[in-house]
């Protein structure tokens, strides 16, 4: 009995450790976001408030990169909102694990993102699933915002183009898209999205081609 208990504590410690390490890794993305956001004309305050309140990386990157390419606020919001919609799915996936008070679920909602959902759903025990969700969510929140601040301060001190920082966004996107290419449907959706975007760039206002790429998700309609 004591042995089982100490094993559980041992497992829990190593789980908490992995969650913290994951958060620190995401902090690197935070730095890239901070740099890119000030390069796109955002103030340090706007950049930091966006990370504190929006707190969903892909949407933030998308919004800022559309603005950087000359897109309107509406075009930036469109693509970013589509990317934010998947957090709704994560919320659905987490709703069985997180059955606390309405207040605790409203707090949990803010940290319902790719990383916390992935870490939590990878656990077999409900208790470990809750631990993984909260520790990952909180650690990503802390490091993401810290990284954003560092990046925003550094980015406003240098000339972003001289250091090739305008390529930091697409390079970050490359790293982000890789896990989605493991399944055939993911590869199809990605190919259709990229082609739809490339074909419409010459004709449509900046940012709108990103929305056209959403047609790629329709490969999911058919049962695999």
């Amino acid at each position, binding site marked *: 009995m004591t042995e089982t208990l100490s094993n559980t504590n041992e497992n829990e410690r190593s789980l908490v450790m992995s969650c913290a390490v994951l958060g620190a890794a995401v902090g690197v993305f935070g730095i890239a976001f901070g740099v890119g956001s000030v390069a796109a004309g955002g103030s340090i305050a706007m950049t930091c408030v966006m990370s504190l309140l929006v707190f969903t990386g892909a949407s933030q990157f998308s919004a800022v990169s559309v603005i950087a390419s000359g897109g309107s606020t509406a075009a930036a919001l469109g693509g970013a909102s589509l990317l934010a919609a998947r957090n709704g799915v994560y919320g659905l996936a987490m709703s069985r694990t997180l059955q606390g008070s309405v207040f605790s*679920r409203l707090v949990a909602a803010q940290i319902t993102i790719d990383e916390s959902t992935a870490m939590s759903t990878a656990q077999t025990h409900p208790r470990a699933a809750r631990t993984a969700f909260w520790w990952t969510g909180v650690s990503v929140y802390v490091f993401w915002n810290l990284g954003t601040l560092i990046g925003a301060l550094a980015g406003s001190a240098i000339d972003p183009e001289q250091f090739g920082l305008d390529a930091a966004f697409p390079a970050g996107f490359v790293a982000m898209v*890789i896990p989605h290419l493991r399944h055939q*449907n993911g590869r199809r959706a990605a190919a259709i999205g990229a082609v739809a975007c490339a074909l419409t760039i010459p004709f449509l206002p900046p940012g709108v081609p990103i929305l056209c790429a959403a047609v790629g998700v*329709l490969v999911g309609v058919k049962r695999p």
Partner: protein
Amino acid sequence: MSWTLVLALSAIAYFFKATGLVVVGGRHLPGAVNRCLDLIPAALVSALIVNSTLGGDDGIVFDARAIGVAAAMLLAAKRAPLVVVIMAGAAVTALARAAGLAA
């Protein structure tokens, strides 16, 4: 970039997160809807790569960014860590630009 964008996106992002967790709760969405939602990142992020690598003032341009992003792709395909991918993408772009390979 504007405060309108920051605050509107904050509201929209929180709306989606809270809807799934608090409002819809344990209910299920149809399978086709779930499968399509799962594919949003693949379709949109690949478009974002194209847009932020090749997007220019007058349509598609190939410049130093394309060289940097090609390097990033090679490294990502070889499972290099995230930080390496981002830094290599930026560094190669900066070098290509400094060498005058492409504007």
